[in-house]
């Protein structure tokens, strides 16, 4: 019905931080298969938005150090225009999604993507992404293997986000 408002497509870009390693090695180290260490960003209005250690950040789609996404999930359309979205993000940035709120397991890029996706389209992101931290965490504890690349994988997740947000939020850019 809302023809007066334009519709903006919303997509979820999904990246595998482990670049395939998780798929290959996770069953060894965790005892169960984890297909990837997922990082996500929401692409709308021609930009990619994500949450990292530096807070909410945005860039050109595929513009993070991760390059091309592993997969793109179509989330549908939204009527929310750029201004409105920006305001929304601003309030988020002051509250729930400040930089220091970042928590690798509980409140990370995927949490953000999920919330934003719901805001924009009413849909949630695929559960295999949001379930990841609890899976890994439980596995890490259970497997008891400490010389394991898994924490580095997760740390990498965290670091990438930190780095991305820093790069993008630096004033000169």
């Amino acid at each position, binding site marked *: 019905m809302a023809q007066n408002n334009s519709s903006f497509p919303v997509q979820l870009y999904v990246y595998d931080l482990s670049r395939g390693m998780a798929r290959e090695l996770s069953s*060894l180290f965790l005892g169960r298969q984890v297909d990837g260490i997922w990082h996500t960003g929401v692409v709308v209005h021609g930009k990619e938005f994500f949450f990292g250690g530096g807070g909410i950040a945005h860039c050109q789609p595929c513009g993070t150090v991760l390059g091309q996404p592993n997969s793109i999930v179509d989330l549908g359309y939204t009527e929310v225009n750029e201004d409105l979205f920006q305001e929304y993000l601003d309030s988020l940035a002051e509250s729930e999604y400040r930089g220091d709120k970042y928590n690798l397991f509980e409140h990370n890029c995927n949490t953000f993507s999920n919330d934003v996706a719901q805001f924009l389209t009413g849909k949630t992101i695929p559960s295999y992404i949001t379930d990841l931290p609890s899976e890994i965490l439980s596995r890490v504890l259970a497997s008891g293997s400490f010389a394991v690349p898994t924490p580095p994988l997760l740390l990498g997740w965290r670091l990438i986000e930190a780095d991305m947000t820093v790069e993008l939020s630096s004033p000169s850019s």
Partner: protein
Amino acid sequence: MAEQGAADLGNNNNNKPEASEGTIIKVTVKTPKDKEEIAIAEDASVTQFKEEISKRFKAKQDQLVLIFAGKILKDGDSLSQHGIKDGLTVHLVIKTAHKAADGGSTSASSSTSNQGGNSTTSSPAANPAPTTVPTGSGHTPTQTPNIMSGFGDLASLAGLGMGSANFMELQQQMQRQLMSNPEMLSQIMENPLVQNMMSNPDLMRQMIMANPQMQQLMERNPEISHMLNNPELMRQTMELARNPAMMQEMMRNQDRALSNLESIPGGYNALRRMYTDIQEPMFSAAREQFGNNPFSALGGNSDSGAQPSRTENREPLPNPWGPPNSSNPSESGGGTTGSTSTSGTTNPSVSNPLGVNPGSLGNGMFNSPGMQSLLQQISENPQLMQNMLSAPYMRSMMQSLAQNPELASQVMMNNPLFAGNPQLQEQFRSQLPIFLQQMQNPEALSVMTNPRAMQALMQIQQGLQMLQTEAPGLMPSLMTSGIPGVPTGGAVPSENPASSPSSAATNPAQQQLMQQMLQMFAGGGGSGGGNGTSQTPEVRFQTQLDQLNAMGFINREANLQALIATGGDINAAIERLLGSQPS
């Protein structure tokens, strides 16, 4: 009932259940900061809804923007039109007056400033000049941890900033970051390899300088570059890195300071804490696992892949050639090492880069489904192996390990897998130089990435196992009758009888091979045979070397390499020598 946009506050129709609008539903209204449940009539209009909301959220109605299922709710619509039912969530954005701008440009600029605002919001001790470590309590001591954390994070930035999204480099950075975590720190610091790395301030400095971020930072704050260039300071930092307790102290003190570095360290601290939370249970879990039920996973636990092998190894195996398997440098991470075991006597060769000891097959180790699946995975994804092996730090690690066998053995010893098994240690130690050499050999690497080679290896394993089970008595007779064309030993086998002038054991190469096999099997059977630990390749291949010499291949070094690579097969070695002239 068609209220105009102007809120008619006196109108009770909105609120009272008795009003004619029908059932009341509870709709959750969610803002970025807040969440409220609002009771509203099912067939109310958006305007009415907004009235309620404006009361609850204390905002003007025209500041409210409601979004549901991606649609913006307009005043003229009704809730039911949008499918808003009981229990659903509607999103609300309260427009702040000065931000309600129309132009796209404004939003762009506000977004930038707000992004900047994001960073500063999160660091309350907001000091725009990150270097001047905000506690400002004295110079060197406070600056030092700043650098250290700088290492922790900025070094990682350096890695990332170098533009390579290579995850392997990331791992390296991560490890460095782990250093600042006290528990992990002591673990890692004991690792002489790491110490080597750390004692190279030039390297560190280089990494930091390479990061454009850092460069910017340095422009803004020349103090940073001073710090970096001050060797005294660097050394202090290294010391600090070695001393976990002091580290921790400093880190804690610098919490606020760290957050100024573009708020990365803020999360970094959280990360450390988080890691601590994980490390503790992991350590205790690890101890449990190793201590309690060592044989639980013996040859048959399909799930844990290399894990059962690790667990098994802790116990004295009946088979002295029991596959040590598993991680060479476990730090180097990953299944690579899981498969690159140098078990028993088999010297790694190109055709047998895993140094797979066929004699150990009977042990159930390599037959464990986990192991098989590991090999399978590896063979299925050569790219992965390639990636892992080509990781730059892996390379350098390999190199330094190769150059420094003590170092390597120390690394091994530190690995708790070996701690309880001195036999393993011995084996490993003796294998180490060869193994490392092999790792250097790009041929070996490329074979590992070659799925067919991997499969061939697996076949070899299986074949050997069959041989062992089917005909344990075959061994002695093999000695005299020559090798049947069974896939045994390296990729040598079938060629060898063919190439040897006679199938009699008189062929020295064959003899060599037989001896090898004997050793392997003897090992498989118990303590019999000789202790097959390596004679040096030169000794073993003496005859072949001589032959090669006689044929005109005078480059002894190259000959040796080729022989090692082909496991003593002269023909193959010759091919190698001929084919790989430039190398």
